[in-house]
């Protein structure tokens, strides 16, 4: 298990692990975020749910440091992500895991190699050789230890998703981003994937942020919900609070009602 080490650790436990400070971001003159603030603490589970095109994936990528805000700052344990020193950037990389919407698996590598590659990249080749047991443990946790030598194209869609999750988790990150982890999967497989995410969170205790457009998954994740609409992100609280949230748009979205303030499609 990777311990927290070095300067990042010094900030103290009460400081947020991620903080957005009046961040703004837009594309082609179309504003996604404006002066947006958010604090995410150690052990939190944040669920971003909302219709397509509401900017929830953009917000996730901003928190993960994959996008830069046009103004404002993204702080990781109190450090501005855009000005991290080389050493801190490496620590940040090792502490953050990400599951991409399309899995972004390496097709030319086997299941095992997909995980080993991450360790090689972040910690070096020697580390990767020494940590075979960690790789096997992670693959076992997602139930893929029987297909180590298969290529991604040889396993099912659900298994590819689990491999994506294993790859995001192999470095035992403190913070994991799941970008629509059940996209395109049937509901039964989706339920299993989210159960697994919850189980792994319990086991290794990371902070997680999940994007989904499926209310059933949001309820199942049972974290702090944020319902995202174009240009507005509503902090609606727990799953129960969200169900009872007064905003008519939230109610329309939850019920999947065609009639209401939100336009469908």
């Amino acid at each position, binding site marked *: 298990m990777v311990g927290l080490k070095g300067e990042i650790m010094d900030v103290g436990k009460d400081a947020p692990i991620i903080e957005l400070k009046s961040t703004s971001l837009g594309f082609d003159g179309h504003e996604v975020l404006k002066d947006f603030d958010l604090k995410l603490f150690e052990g939190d589970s944040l669920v971003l749910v*909302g219709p*397509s095109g509401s900017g929830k994936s953009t917000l996730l990528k901003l928190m993960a440091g994959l996008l830069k805000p046009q103004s404002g700052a993204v702080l990781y344990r109190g450090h501005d992500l855009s000005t991290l020193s080389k050493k801190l950037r490496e620590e940040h990389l090792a502490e953050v895991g990400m599951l991409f919407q399309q899995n972004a698996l390496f097709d030319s590598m086997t299941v095992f190699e997909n995980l080993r590659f991450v360790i090689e990249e972040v910690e070096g080749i020697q580390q990767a050789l020494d940590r075979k047991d960690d790789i096997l443990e992670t693959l076992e946790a997602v139930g893929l230890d029987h297909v180590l030598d298969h290529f991604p194209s040889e396993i099912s869609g*659900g298994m590819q998703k689990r491999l994506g999750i294993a790859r995001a988790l192999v470095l035992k990150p403190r913070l994991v981003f799941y970008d629509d982890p059940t996209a395109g999967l049937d509901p039964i497989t989706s339920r299993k994937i989210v159960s697994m995410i919850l189980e792994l969170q319990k086991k290794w205790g990371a902070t997680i942020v999940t994007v989904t457009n*499926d209310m059933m998954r949001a309820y199942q994740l049972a974290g702090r919900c944020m319902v995202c609409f174009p240009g507005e992100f509503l902090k609606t609280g727990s799953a129960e609070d969200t169900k009872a949230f007064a905003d008519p748009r939230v109610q329309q*979205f*939850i019920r*999947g009602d065609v009639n209401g303030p939100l336009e469908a*499609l």
Partner: protein
Amino acid sequence: MIAFKKVTKSFGARTILNELDLEIPQGKIVFILGMSGTGKSVLLKNIVGLLKPDSGELYVDRFPVHQMSEHEMMDVRKICGMVFQQPALFDNLNVFENVAYGLRRHFELSEEEVSRRVEESLGHVGLKGIEAKQSHELSYGMKKRVSLARTIALKPKILLFDEPTTGLDPISTSRVNQLILDLSNQLGTTSLVVSHDMESALKVADHIVVLDKGHLLTQGTPAEMQESTIPLIQDFLAEVGAP
């Protein structure tokens, strides 16, 4: 009516449809449910001859699809409108030409008749007046509806939907379901919807068919499905959200 008789279809070593026997009743909205990879899309593609069964017989209306050539299949494709999972619009054509595409090729129509049918179809999907737009100017949802208009412009007797709500948010899902219901009623078609969304099926379908591992697992009305004790059906039902 569509009838599968012991239809088998494999890709390499993977058998997708395994001696499937299935009859789709006429004039109904029929949902075909199953987990990913159980051959639901393959089933649809066999009906319109985009794929050919390895063995078995497949009848669509009066046509023996399993023994027809690509050329002969044109008659089947005139009566079977396929709505693809992705919008599959032609990038280099505007909305009008996209919707008119099949009309021009399947039928000999006057230009006025083509215009009238295009306008009518776009009206059905709530998109009147966007004829001149290019497909890249449209949102994803609009593309999906244009592709639906393109299919119904042919006035098919049978509408085939390939996972129409997969990946859509709840509101868009309801909108698509509403469209399927309205179109099927207005046009009097048989609609065959491949999906893994039990909630939509319960709301929209007259009849539900459940496939598992290339076989027919069970079928019945939505009410019968809700009473089912089969574990897979119960798993699907567990995913139906609160009303």
